[in-house]
Structures are given as structure tokens and as C-alpha cells.
């Protein structure tokens, strides 16, 4: 036991020293101001199995006096689903490989706790998962359907767009799929390539009847997921897979929700409005740090959280103050959500704009493997865009 503890603390020391470039489970974690440190270690349990565990199951309290626990993104999502399954006897969770805990460990321990009839594997068929979930919701249950990677959501696209989104409308509210939630990991991961890195939010934002929600951190994920599960509309919940292990926060242990449809100003500023969601906010945070240092400005950072329905009013309020807008997302530029936001802002705040709206997005290519570093809308590209915004001269 003693040797185990000393082993842990020695690993921890190594972690702390190598904080800039610790490799955890093949994910390259980048340090940033919002997430401090990585406290993941391989612990050898008494039955000889190796397991990833948080060394410090530290408890704490947040600013609202709620008891908190150190959680990463997948643990927070796991906690949210645990609460959903506990508080709603009609809630079920299913998808590919969900029974053993899911390939991203989001479903760890849920089958053991809630039973095999409520947490189960389905055959390998996304269109089946989606159709099955819709039918369950139509019968009054609360299905949480996991799609293993957002890249594989497309076989389910017909069911989601043609059926789930239109279920209430086409039946004249005789029927609905209120309890339906889809969850899928999305986004760049460093080595995902075409089919493990996509951000398909734009396809779904183009579909009336759906809600699309993207959390940025564990605290947000737990609250938003609980709100999504309980929202009486079908919700697509996209989880930034890059942050599953690397994003760690003190998360309230209680049952709480974060309101859907409301964007949040997570950093106040006067000179530039910057809009993003999910993992991209960490990138934007870095860009803002550079910009504030080098250009002597202050930037206002907005997390959209809910992409559909869009909270355009929060952005308008900010743009009226700053006059300059930058929107950044990993998804390809053409047809991406940044275009929709830009169109709405130029409609509603045209005369407040002091520069063209900037969009820093992925290039219009499939997500490439070896070129990811070049493709990605990173902090430097965003810094360049901020600089261009700030230095834009109307007279020229």
C-alpha cells in the first residue's frame, strides 16, 4: 500500500515536471489557463488489473457553495447520465460498446448500477440506433443514444432529420420525441484524420426541430447534458473528444442543469468580440492572451453552448460594444455555422460593425491526417485575424 502511494506520488511529480508535454493515453494534452494540470495515472488495483484513475478524488466547494468533486469531461458526462438514469426510471442508454463502459469510458459503471435492460449494447448500426431511439421516445421513454464518433452519425442522418426533427410538427403535436437525446464525440484529436475528427454541427443546425448543444468543460457538460436529456425536444449533444481526459474541473456533485439556448460571455472585453464553442474556446483563449499582450486590447469571449436555437442577442449586445467580430470553428469554412452567425450579425448590427466579420475555420477539405497542424484553425491564425480586425482601416 505504501509503495503504491509512493509510486503514485512519484508519477505525479514526473507529471508536474513534464506538465508542458505529458502524454496520456495517446492524446496530446495542451496546457491552458482554463484547465490546470493532468492528474491521470495508471493505478494497479488489488485484483491485478490496471486502471486509469484520478489520484486525487478531491472534494471541494464552488463559488455557490455546492460540494464539488474533481472530474474530467467523461467523468462529468458519466455523472450526468448516472443522475438521469437514477431520477428518471424511463431513461435508458445504449449504443455500440456502451455496456462495458464505452470506448471513451463515458458509460463506466452504469450498466452495473442501473441494470442490463437500461444500459445495453446495440448491433453495429447507426441508422438502427437512431430509429430505435426515436421509437422509444415516441412511446414515452427517455433514450440516450450514443453514436460512437460524430463521423459515423451519417447513416442516422435520415432518421434524425426526416423523422426525429419533424416528429412533433408533422403529427400536429399528436406525437413527439421529447425525451430523445443523441450523444456523439466530435472534433480534432491530433491524429484522427477524416473519420475521427469531424465536426458535423452545421448539418444539424440546418434542420428545424433539432437542438444542438456543445459543452466546453466538465462543469458545463454535466449541466448541459442533464438539461438536454430533460429538454422536451430531440437534442444532439456533441462532446469535444479532445477534452475527455484533459479537461478537469471541480464539478458540483449535485443534480444541476445549465439553461439551453443561452450563450455565455466567459471573458469580458472592449475591443473585439470572439465567438466559439466546445474545444475551440481553449484555442481562442490562447489567441486572446497573445492579442492582449501584443496588441494591447481586451477581447470578449463568448461560448455559444447551444448552436441551435442560436442565442444571437448575446452576440449582438457584444458586437454593439466592440464593433468587431471573430468566429472560429474546426469545421470547414464554407457552409459552416460561422457563416450563419455572420449573416445574422450583419443583418442586425450592420452599422455597428467597424470591420468585416472574420471567420477562422478549417479549410474546405476533408479533415487531413498528416496536415492537421496546417489545417487546424489554431491560436496563431486566430491571433492574425484579431490583428487584422483591430488594424482594419475604413479609409483604405
Amino acid at each position, binding site marked *: 500500500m505504501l509503495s503504491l502511494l509512493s509510486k503514485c506520488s512519484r508519477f505525479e511529480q514526473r507529471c508536474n515536471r513534464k506538465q508542458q508535454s505529458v502524454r496520456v493515453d495517446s492524446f496530446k494534452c495542451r496546457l491552458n489557463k482554463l484547465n490546470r494540470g493532468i492528474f491521470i495515472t495508471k493505478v494497479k488495483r488489488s485484483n491485478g488489473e490496471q486502471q486509469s484513475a484520478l489520484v486525487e478524488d478531491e472534494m471541494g466547494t464552488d463559488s455557490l457553495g455546492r460540494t464539488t468533486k474533481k472530474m474530467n469531461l467523461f467523468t462529468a458526462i458519466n455523472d450526468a447520465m448516472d443522475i438521469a438514469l437514477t431520477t428518471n426510471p424511463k431513461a435508458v442508454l445504449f449504443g455500440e460498446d456502451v455496456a462495458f463502459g464505452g470506448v471513451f469510458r463515458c458509460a463506466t459503471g452504469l450498466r452495473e448500477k442501473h441494470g442490463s435492460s437500461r444500459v445495453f449494447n446495440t448491433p453495429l448500426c447507426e441508422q*438502427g440506433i437512431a430509429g*430505435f431511439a426515436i421509437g422509444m421516445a415516441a412511446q414515452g421513454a427517455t433514450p440516450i443514444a450514443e453514436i460512437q464518433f460524430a463521423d459515423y452519425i451519417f447513416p442516422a442522418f435520415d432518421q434524425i432529420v426526416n423523422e426525429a426533427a419533424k416528429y412533433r410538427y408533422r403529427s400536429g403535436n399528436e406525437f413527439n420525441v421529447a425525451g430523445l437525446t443523441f450523444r456523439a464525440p466530435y472534433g480534432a484529436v491530433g491524429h484522427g484524420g477524416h473519420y475521427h475528427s469531424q465536426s458535423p454541427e452545421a448539418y444539424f443546425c440546418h434542420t428545424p426541430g433539432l437542438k444542438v448543444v456543445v459543452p466546453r468543460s466538465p462543469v458545463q457538460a454535466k449541466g448541459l447534458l442533464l438539461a438536454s436529456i430533460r429538454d422536451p425536444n430531440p437534442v444532439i449533444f456533441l462532446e469535444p473528444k479532445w477534452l475527455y481526459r484533459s479537461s478537469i474541473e471541480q464539478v458540483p456533485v449535485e443534480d444541476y442543469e445549465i439553461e439551453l439556448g443561452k450563450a455565455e460571455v466567459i471573458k469580458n472585453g472592449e475591443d473585439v468580440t470572439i465567438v466559439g464553442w466546445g474545444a475551440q474556446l481553449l484555442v481562442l483563449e490562447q489567441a486572446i492572451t497573445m492579442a492582449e499582450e501584443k496588441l494591447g486590447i481586451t477581447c470578449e469571449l463568448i461560448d455559444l453552448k447551444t448552436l441551435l436555437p442560436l442565442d444571437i442577442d448575446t452576440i449582438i449586445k457584444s458586437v454593439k460594444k466592440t464593433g468587431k467580430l471573430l468566429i472560429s470553428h474546426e469545421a470547414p469554412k464554407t457552409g459552416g455555422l460561422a457563416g450563419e452567425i455572420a449573416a445574422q450579425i450583419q443583418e442586425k448590427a450592420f452599422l455597428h460593425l467597424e470591420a468585416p466579420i472574420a471567420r477562422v475555420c478549417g479549410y474546405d477539405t476533408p479533415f487531413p491526417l498528416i496536415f492537421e497542424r496546417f489545417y487546424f484553425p489554431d491560436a496563431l491564425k486566430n491571433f492574425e485575424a484579431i490583428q487584422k480586425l483591430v488594424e482594419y482601416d475604413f479609409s483604405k
Partner: protein
Amino acid sequence: KNKRSRRKSFEIIRTSIHFTMISSSFVRSLGNARKISVPTFRNNVTKSQIKLHPQKVSSKGFASKADKDGIKLEKVLAYPGEKSYFEDKFRFHTTKEILPTYRIMDEEGRILNSEEDPKLDKDTVVTMYQHMLTLNAMDTVLYDVQRQGRISFYMTNFGEEATHLGSAAALKMEDTIFAQYREAGVFLWRGFTLDEFMNQCYSNSQDYGKGRQMPVHYGSRKLNIQTISSPLATQIPQATGSAYAQKMAKSGNCTVCYFGEGAASEGDFHAAINFAATLETPSVFFCRNNRWAISTPSTEQYRGDAIAGRGISYGVDTIRVDGNDVFAVYNATKAARKKAVEENKPVLIEAMTYRISHHSTSDDSTRYRTSAEIEIWKTKHEPVKRLQKYLTSKGWWTEEQDKNFKSSVRKDVLAALKRAEAVKKPHPDECFTDVYDQLPPNLIEQREEMRQHLKKYPQNYPIDQHLS
């Protein structure tokens, strides 16, 4: 002759030596192996020559194996489909067996096997027949009404009446129904009124669907029939999910799903049957194999043993019935429902029938099939006439009653039509409701835009036809 017997005995010896060599090493190598299927050789080797460890497979599908030292090895899963056997002669396998078609009433209305006669009472059978006549009358009128431009679209059900009434009569109201679009008889059986049909076809303000979908996209919460949607086969996996939710709620009911043989080519069908089999849902899948998917005959739709053949390969209990024999359909659905509800097992029913009608009002089926073919099915195998013959033979229905009912039901249909035509369309604001449970900001904004626009240009829009 001697040569042959010598050869034979040599073969036996060779194979048995071969086998014992292999079997001992094989058994040794089994050790910690996960395979539990028992290899048997089919060529002239008797069982006594084979020494094998007996496998015990528990009812839960697990086999635990202990080696000779009594050390318990890990439990291994008994995977379905692995109860195969080895054979050392190469050959391809193909479907040879065609599933038979269950039928108990022939074209003349005679019961072929009294043991299988459901012996339904007069009221039930007469009601079934009357619903068939009502369906025919409604289809005839609404088809013409579409041709006159008074409704935009319609689909008739001629030829498939028995599939509707036979199956619907075998279900309970608590059984949820998902349908495709050619199941109006099912709606009729459950109590959907002529007014309700007409309101939906006219997209007026009394349509439960609030005029949002094309005609024949009926739905009724009180009758427990989910609203029809145009994309084919999407309802099949939904039906599986609905059944699973019923199983979880321990409601003792099942979900029945109707679809055509063309829709069964969609991936959603395969997904749904597989899910139903693996998740053990109380589902009844009812395929109306009416031989035509618009202009595509079933010879271009599949090569295997139609839809019933697929059910078997997915591990689902299957029956093929004569879809024009209302009693066979009734029996099959009743038994299927029983199995689904009592054993939580899905059942697939393939009802062989024929689409006498065109696919829809946008179709002229004589362009791709002969009138002669249609005529055969309209006369010889036609389900309504067949049931009429049965009723007449039982003395439950006369020519006089037939004539009177047909004329009175036509009057009812025309009266309902007139009523529906007079009802105004829904308020234009209903364009924006029910997208979500509540209007989001963008829809509130867009609704206001539309209102202002209509205020400015009232004469350019059919505002008078709608509620205001």
C-alpha cells in the same frame, strides 16, 4: 467391386487415423481456447471413434469448461450461429427451401382446414367486410376527387383490404401501430372516421396533423396509430424501439409495424429486425408483399426467398401467409401477437398479396404492367369478393344487403367529403408551432415577418381559405 470396398475401408482407416491425430492435438490445443463448438466429421466416421469432451451449455448461453485437473477455465460465450459443423467437401450453399404460404380460405370462400378456422362470430366478420366496402368506396371517391384537383394527392388500397382488416382485428387497442401509407383499413378498424380521413386529405383545420403533410399521412393518438411519414421503412426501427419501451414498462402489449416488400430493401428494415432479435422486443413486423414497388416488380427487388426468408436468417420466427385470405392473416397476426407479448420475441409476417391499384394518383400502372395481369388479381384472388363468398355461404350476407350497403356507404363518403371541403384551412400561424415544444426566438421573429407581409399583401395570398 472388391476394389471399391477395399478403397472404402482404406478411406475409413485413413480418416480415422487422420482424425485421431488431429483430434488429440486439437483437443490439447483447445485448452484455453474460446471455441466450444464440437467438430464432427461426416465421412464414414462413427461416433464411437471420436473421443470428445461433453460440452455443457447452460440456458443462459454460457458454457463453463474445466480441464482434467479440475481447474475452472474462463466462461465462454455460446455465440449463436456457431453450432455449425466442419465438412471437408467444398461447396457453395444457396437458398433451396421456399417457405410455404399459409392459407385457410380458398378463392371460393371455402375453409380448407376446419382445425385452423378461427371461427369468428358473425358480427366480427360482417364488420370486417363492411370496412372493406367502406375502404373501397372511400378510395374510389377520393381518387376521383384528386383527379378533379380538389385534393392534391391520394393513394388507394385496392387488393390489400384483407391484410388490413385481418391483422387489425387480431390486435388490441393498446398495441401501438406504425404504418407505411397503404393501411387505411387498419385505421378504419380501430375507429378512424370518414370525417377524420377527409380532414387530413383536405389539410383543413380539423386535421390532427394541422395540414402539414400530404394526404394519406394519417395519425391518431387516441387510436394508438403513429402518424405516417413519407420516407420508406423509417418506421420499422422505430417500431422496434417502441416495443422495447413497452417491454420496459411491462405493459403486456406489442408494437406492430406495417411496410411493403420494397421498403424491406431499405437498410432500416435490416437494422430493425436485427435489433428486435438481439434486444428481444415484443414486435410484430407485417410485410405487405404486394408484388410492386411503384414500377419495380419484386423480381427486381430481391433474389432470396422474399422477405420471409430474411426473417429466418436474422433468427426471427417467421410466417408467410396468403394476404388475400383474411382468416389466415387474422390467425397469423393473433399468434404473432401472442408470441411477441408472452415471450418478448419478434415475429415477421409476410402477407403475399397484390397491389391492384396504381401506386398513387401520380402513377399509371398500365405503363409497366399488363391489364391482363391486373385483371386476374381483380377477379380470381380478390380478397373482398372472397370474403363475400364466405359470408354468402354462411348465410350472413345477401346480395340485397350488399347493394344497399354499397350505395349507403358511398353516400356517407360523399357527405363527409362535402363537410371536409367546407372546413377552413388552419391558421397561418400554425406554420410555426410544434417545430419545438415552444417557439424559439428565430421563429417568433419569422412569424412576425410573415404576419407583416400578409398584412401588406393580403390579396396575393389565399388568406380567405384559412382560419384568421
